[in-house]
């Protein structure tokens, strides 16, 4: 049974659900160019070269999934669902998630370029369908560095959000998540009523490796497929990618042979004196 709390209009666990620890966690993961790859810009400047390049799960998403798994292992949750959006190859990333220990996965078959607002809308639709009590995402994807999806989906769901989490502590009784956030000035601690959205930062945890027994189990885990139409979400983008270019190359340092030469360069080349 699902109750509605007047203040947050979110979803709350019933007493039974609380006792039985039936909390569900949904984790959104993105397939991106592997962090260690040296990227190259396509010659037509339309984007980054992605063909024949190693693709992996976004590192922040790995951290998000790891956190969800730890919460489940501590007994506070019963199920972890991994979600990814994009073309068929996303299934590889979901398999990695399942091999790490997620219970099942959802693949939303969508075009490769999805901007954060579209992703947020799709996530909202999935949350409405699955009714998880916690939605964890990486703070940003390393290919676009947007850092928007978590915040947008929290807004759409009208859920509280704890972003840049470097520590998460759940209190099942009080239905509250205490999140320590990394902010410019230091650390900020927030208390969020569940259900909530958390986005993870680097220092939250160190993700586990995919072990062979888990890889074996993952083969029989379910990956459910949805299309945006089935979720009643229209994907339209208000953004148009105009151009992608390399940053300007740093000029090599020059060793000058005398103070006079240095002054000359500072004056006539760098124009700083």
């Amino acid at each position: 049974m699902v109750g509605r709390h007047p203040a947050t209009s979110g979803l709350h666990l019933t007493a039974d659900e609380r006792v039985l620890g039936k909390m569900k966690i949904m984790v959104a993961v993105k397939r991106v160019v592997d962090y260690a790859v040296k990227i190259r810009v396509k010659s037509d400047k339309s984007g980054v070269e992605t063909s024949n390049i190693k693709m992996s799960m976004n590192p922040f998403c790995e951290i998000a999934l790891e956190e969800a798994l730890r919460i489940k292992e501590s007994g506070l949750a019963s199920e972890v669902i991994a979600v990814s959006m994009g073309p068929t190859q996303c299934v590889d990333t979901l398999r990695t998630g399942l091999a790490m220990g997620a219970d099942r996965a959802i693949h939303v078959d969508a075009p490769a370029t999805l901007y954060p607002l579209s992703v947020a809308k799709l996530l909202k639709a999935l949350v409405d369908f699955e009714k998880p009590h916690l939605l964890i995402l990486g703070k940003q994807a390393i290919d676009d560095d947007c850092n928007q999806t978590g915040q947008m989906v929290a807004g759409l769901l009208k859920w509280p959000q704890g972003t840049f989490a470097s520590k998460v502590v759940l209190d099942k009784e009080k239905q509250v998540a205490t999140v320590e956030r990394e902010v410019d000035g230091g650390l900020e601690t927030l208390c969020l009523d569940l259900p909530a959205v958390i986005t993870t930062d680097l220092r939250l945890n160190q993700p586990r490796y995919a072990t062979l027994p888990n890889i074996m189990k993952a083969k029989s885990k379910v990956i459910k497929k949805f299309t945006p139409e089935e979720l009643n979400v229209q994907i339209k983008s208000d953004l148009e990618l105009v151009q992608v270019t390399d940053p300007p190359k740093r000029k090599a340092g020059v060793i000058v042979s005398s103070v006079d030469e240095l002054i000359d360069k500072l004056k006539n080349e760098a124009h700083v004196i």
Partner: protein
Amino acid sequence: MILTSPHISGHMTIKWFVYFSVRSICNSKTCNPKPQIEHQKQNIQTCSRYYLGNLQASIETYLEKTCKIHYRSFGSTATKIQRNPSYSALTSDDINHFKEILGEKNVIQDEDRLLTANVDWMRKYKGSSRLLLQPRSTEEVSQILKYCNSRCLAVVPQGGNTGLVGGSVPVFDEVIINIGSMNNIISFDKVSGILVCEAGCILENLDSFVVNQGFIMPLDLGAKGSCQIGGNVSTNAGGLRFVRYGSLHGNILGLEAVLANGTVLDMLATLRKDNTGYDLKQLFIGSEGSLGIVTKVSILTPPKLSSVNIAFLACKDYSSCQKLLLEAKRKLGEVLSAFEFLDNQSMDMVLTHLEGVRNPLPPSTYDFYVLIETMGSDESYDREKLEAFLLRSMEGGLISDGVVAQDINQASSFWHIREGIAEALMKAGAVYKYDLSLPVEKMYNLVEEMRLRLGQSAKVLGYGHLGDANLHLNISTPQYDDTVLAQIEPFVYEWTSKQRGSISAEHGLGLMKANEIHYSKSPETVNAFLTNPFVILLLGLANDHSMGELGNDHEDIFTAALIIKIH
């Protein structure tokens, strides 16, 4: 000819080359300025006899089993060699001459820089050279060597100085010729993958360069950030990709070397197939610099395959590791690119002494760890193949547990564990390092025997290229200790010899093992080294006055060799 401790970056031969140098001095004193071939032949015979005489003594010593081994103060085994008085001492005229050839900047007498150049990576061998030269071209190397030859100055070629047997540093006060400044890439053929570069190029830099073009270097080793290709070639380095791409003897298509008298031998072909005469360059590969300084290299690079997968596995015992190897070779077949193993003690050493390293497997003690890497062209196919193989092996009990890397960072962390063992050992204190080729079934028996022999006095680690039947036996103690050493040597060499193994699979002989060559090569073979017509030829060419009639053409060398053979 002055090469005493020749070696570019790695290992070196010692005593029998000291013989060479003595011999060539003898040559220069007795040779006429313009010898006929007849005279040359006679000289060679004289010198061969001189060599053989010395070699005979060495063989007799071996046969009588009275090897006199003197210990250096920090405990490494090395025969106490005396500095040969026939070699000149460095004078200021010499230094000026070098400055003329190389310019002020490349003639180094600075104490600090000499200190680093005089000591090897393991800090076990220290020379007392007072001059470091950094030539920037083959021509400069040639002029240096010509001059040293005429002055009877001993030299040692040096590259990255990452060798593990004391071959890259001076024994006494030899002039150090460091090839590191010759680091240009000359050409790269994007279709065939043939790379031509100077010998001072650092392996990792070459790898980055060819990776950009869609290729990879056929060899990879832990020292890649510092070792230079010239040294790799001169030591016939093996490394982590050996099981897939084989030896440098197959991958090196050509090289350019400068002989001790300054003669430049241009064997820099870029052809896959060239059956025109004797393949002289093969002698240089693995000769540890004793025949000449390699200045340019032409190497075949394989295409970079897009899908790289790596698994870190735990096995309960050594026989599982062996069976796993057999299965891997059969089931993974053409995609298998590396098969390494390490024991529990090695893992402990790495976890204790290296920063930022964690055991990929959930906490449990396993006795053995195996690292398997595959490289292929189809990501999902390779991944499935590897996973199917691993799961089946797990069901069969060969693997107790394992993890598969999901991204490049995880893959690097697995390699960091295997490649970091040597570094961890250095941090732990003193290390006695042995690199042995042994039959796979017997390999770990040696490790266990050493543990029994040494008991509490030392930590014995076994790890290495299981795919190539190459064991890296390492014994770690807080300090160098002669009593520990006495327990290790010559037992390890004798044990290896009984298995008809090699006392130096890939590290070379250097200063450390030159005297132990008889454990792996029969006296007749060693004799053959010294009387091999090509070796004599190359060393004879080193003498200014010899081969005066012959040009430096390949053809003439070939002819001369034949003549010597006939007579």
